[in-house]
């Protein structure tokens, strides 16, 4: 009985915790994609984003483009094509 309850609890926790995480990832993806577009660069669909540090990401697009997005010391958002 105890293993069943623990499994159920684990499943619920995973589901409840996974949804916000997915939403956060989605929001971050939209944010990065909009940032890339604002800099005049192309990204049809963001397929992967890797966090390097605070305010520092590497984004991979479906069309093969990869970008380094970060905030420099002057507080400017920089999008570098890799």
């Amino acid at each position, binding site marked *: 009985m105890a293993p069943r309850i623990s499994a159920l609890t684990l499943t619920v926790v995973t589901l409840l915790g996974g949804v916000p995480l997915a939403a956060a990832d989605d*929001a971050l993806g939209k944010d990065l994609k909009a940032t890339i577009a604002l800099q005049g660069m192309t990204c049809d669909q963001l397929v992967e984003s890797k966090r390097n540090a605070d305010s520092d990401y590497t984004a991979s697009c479906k069309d093969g483009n990869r970008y380094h997005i970060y905030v420099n010391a002057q*507080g400017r958002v920089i999008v570098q094509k890799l």
Partner: protein
Amino acid sequence: MHRLAIAGFLLVLSVSGCAWMKGTATSEGRRDAQVVPVPPNAAPQTTPPPASTPATPTSTLPAEAGSSTDNGSERSSTPARASDAAQPPPPATPPPPTTPPPPATPPPPVDPANRSSSAKARSTGDTRPAKVAGAAAAQTLQSVSSPAPLPPSSSAPAPSSTPNASPTLNLADLEQRLRETRAIGVFTKLSLKNQVDDLLNAFRELYRGPDKHPSAELRQRYDLLLLKVLTLLQDGDPPLAAAISSSREAIWSILADPDKFAKI
């Protein structure tokens, strides 16, 4: 026996006859009681129809007449009967011609926007005299005449408020709303802020020079930046996008004026 039967029959006849006479007398008395106040009522009751009929040429009154008639028929059937009973004294109809005041109501049709309000006022005004006694005739006349001045007063502020809403600009409020909106991510907000700062720096450079007139290129940059902001906001925060869009020229007027720009 026959005498008794005949006497009993006569008694029954007399009793029933008295009862019938009493009933008719009371009903007549009621009619009289209704008719007496009716003459004053007859004027307003009979007047609305003429008022509606002459005004019907306009497209507004059909609905109003229908509503008033519907209300009258639904709400009180007795008044209608009273009016029917009052019709016999059509000699009292001479007042109707004196009720041209209702024709004064045509002004409302001029205001299509306030058609409903005036219609309601009229319908209530029409139903009231039907319900209330003749003493309310004066009130109905006042209510009928009052709606005419009311609509203009109510119509005036409405259009004035809508145009005022668009040109008003509250930069601080817009900035705060931009900061707090969740339609744009942090990176995007920071990127937009960078571009806004770049544009403001371009204006500062311009106003340091001799030529104080912003070039077409600056206007193009401004339009492009605003377009980016609107694109980002239009799905996630439509009200803010609308507010910014409506403030486009107001913001530009501040940017393009060195004095106003210096006060930012």
